[in-house]
C-alpha cells in the first residue's frame, strides 16, 4: 500500500481499511500503537479521534454521532453540520468530530478569563484528534 506521504507533525501513517469498508456515516474503532482510535467517514471526509473521553475516560468513539444543534433564538432549533458531532456515551459531552474540540468550551471561549467559581476550561475540553484521509483507496490515519 502506498500510504507513505508524510502528514503534519512527523506522525506515522497507518492504514486502517479499504475505503469501501468505511462508507459515509460509518465508523471503525482500531488499535494503533497501542491506542484505541475511532475513524469516521463524515460525508466522504475522514476524521479520527482517540477513543477516550477527556472527561472521565469513556470510550468516546462509541458515542452517538449527531448534528450540531443550535438556535438563533429561544425555541428555534436548527440542525447544522450534520453528523459532525460525537456525543460521549457516558455524560453526553459533545465533541466536534473534525477537531476534537468540545462544543461547550471551544477555543473561542477558552481564551476568556474565568472568574472565581466558574470552572476554567482545561485540557479536559479537547479529545485527541488525528489526521485521517483516503490514499489510493485506503483509509489512513496519522498517529
Amino acid at each position, binding site marked *: 500500500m502506498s500510504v507513505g506521504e508524510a502528514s503534519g507533525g512527523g506522525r506515522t501513517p497507518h492504514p486502517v481499511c479499504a475505503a469501501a469498508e468505511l462508507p459515509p456515516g460509518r465508523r471503525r474503532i482500531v488499535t494503533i500503537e497501542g491506542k484505541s482510535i475511532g475513524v469516521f467517514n463524515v460525508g466522504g471526509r475522514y476524521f479520527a479521534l482517540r477513543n477516550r473521553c477527556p472527561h472521565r475516560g469513556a470510550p468516546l468513539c462509541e458515542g452517538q454521532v449527531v448534528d450540531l444543534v*443550535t438556535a438563533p*433564538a*429561544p*425555541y428555534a*432549533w436548527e440542525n447544522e453540520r450534520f453528523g459532525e458531532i460525537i456525543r460521549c456515551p457516558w455524560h453526553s*459531552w459533545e465533541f466536534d468530530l473534525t477537531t476534537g474540540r468540545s462544543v461547550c468550551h471551544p477555543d473561542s471561549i477558552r481564551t476568556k478569563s474565568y*472568574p472565581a*467559581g*466558574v470552572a476554567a476550561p482545561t485540557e479536559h475540553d479537547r479529545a485527541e484528534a488525528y489526521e485521517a484521509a483516503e490514499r489510493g483507496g485506503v483509509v489512513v490515519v496519522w498517529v
Partner: protein
Amino acid sequence: MGARVRAIDTDAHHQLRGIADLKPYLSRHDWQRLEEFGMPRNSNLYQASGGFRGARADCFGAGDDVDPRSRIALFQEKLLDGCGVDFAILQGEYTPAVLALADLDFSAALCRATNDWTLAEWVGRDPRFRLALTVPIQDPVLAVREIERLGDHPAVVAVYAVCGSPRLYGQRHYDPVFAACVKHGLALALHFSNEGIGMNPAPTAGGHPSYYAEQYLVRPQFYQAHLSSFLFEGTFEKFPQLRVAFLESGFGWVPAFRWRADATWRSLRAQTPWVKRPPSEYMREHIRFATQPFEDPEPAGALTAVLDGMDAEQTLMFSSDFPHWDFDPPDAIVRRLPESLRQRVLVETALETYPKLPR
C-alpha cells in the same frame, strides 16, 4: 444626589393601616366589595411565623394591635435614620394575598389602589422610599397594563413577583411582563410567598411540611426552580437587560447551584441550544442576591468560599427585611464582609440592579 449614599435596603415591607386607606384609589364598585369582604389575607398554612406575629417584637411600641409594618414613623426612626439607610425599596406586605386572588380584575384593582396609595402616602411623605410595583402577574396582560401606567414614576424601581405561582417564571407566558420591565428600566424582584396557596403547587417540592420552620428552611428550592427556568428557557437571551433580584433567597447555595447548572448544561446543552453560555455566566450578569437572611457558614473561611463562588462583588446586595422578625441591620452585615465588598454590597450593586435609583 449631593451626599454620598450610605446604604440601600432592597427589601422592606410596609402595610396598610386598614382598608380605608384604599378608598380614594378604588372605583365605587370595588370599594363596596372591599368594604364588605375586607382585604384578602396572606394565607398562612401554619398559623405561625417568627418573632411576634412575624415582625420584630421591639417594633410594637404603638400597641400589640398596631401592625408595625403600617407605621411610616417607625420605618423612619428604626430603619432610615436608625440604620443609615438612604433608600428603602418597599415590597408590600399585602402583595402576596392580592396576587393569590383568582379573580383577576379585582386583583388588578387592588394592585392599582395599593400602588397609588404607597406612592401618595409613603413615597409622597418620605422621598427615601422606593416601590417594587405590585402587578397581577398571574395575568401578564393586566400586569403589563399596570407597568405601563406607573412604570415611569420616578419612585417605581422594580416589579414584585412572589415565588409561589402556577407557572415557573422563565416560561414564555411571562415574557410580556419582562419586556415591560426592560422598557421602563425596572428590575424584577422575586420574593418568597404564596407557595402552596390557592392554585399554586405545594410549599415544598416534596409536599406539605407540618411546620413553619420546615417551610422557612427549604425556601431556596423555589428560587432554584425559577432560576433553572430563567436559565434554560433563555430568558436572558430574550431580555439581555433584565435584572432579577432574589430577595430572602439566602445565598449559601449559590456556588453549588452554579457548578450543577454548568455541568447540566454541558451534558444537555443540545436540548436547549439557545442557552449559549454556561448558566453561571447568565447568573453572574442577571441575578442579584439580597443578603438577608444572612447565613453564617462554618467553619471560618467558608463564607469567603461562598462569596468567591457566587462572585459576590457583582451579585450580592444588602437587604434588611424590616420590620420582619429575621431582620438584619446593615452594620452587622458589613462587618462580616471583607472591606473590598462593603461598598459594593451596601450601595453599588443595588444601583446597578435598579437603574432608576438616583446615583
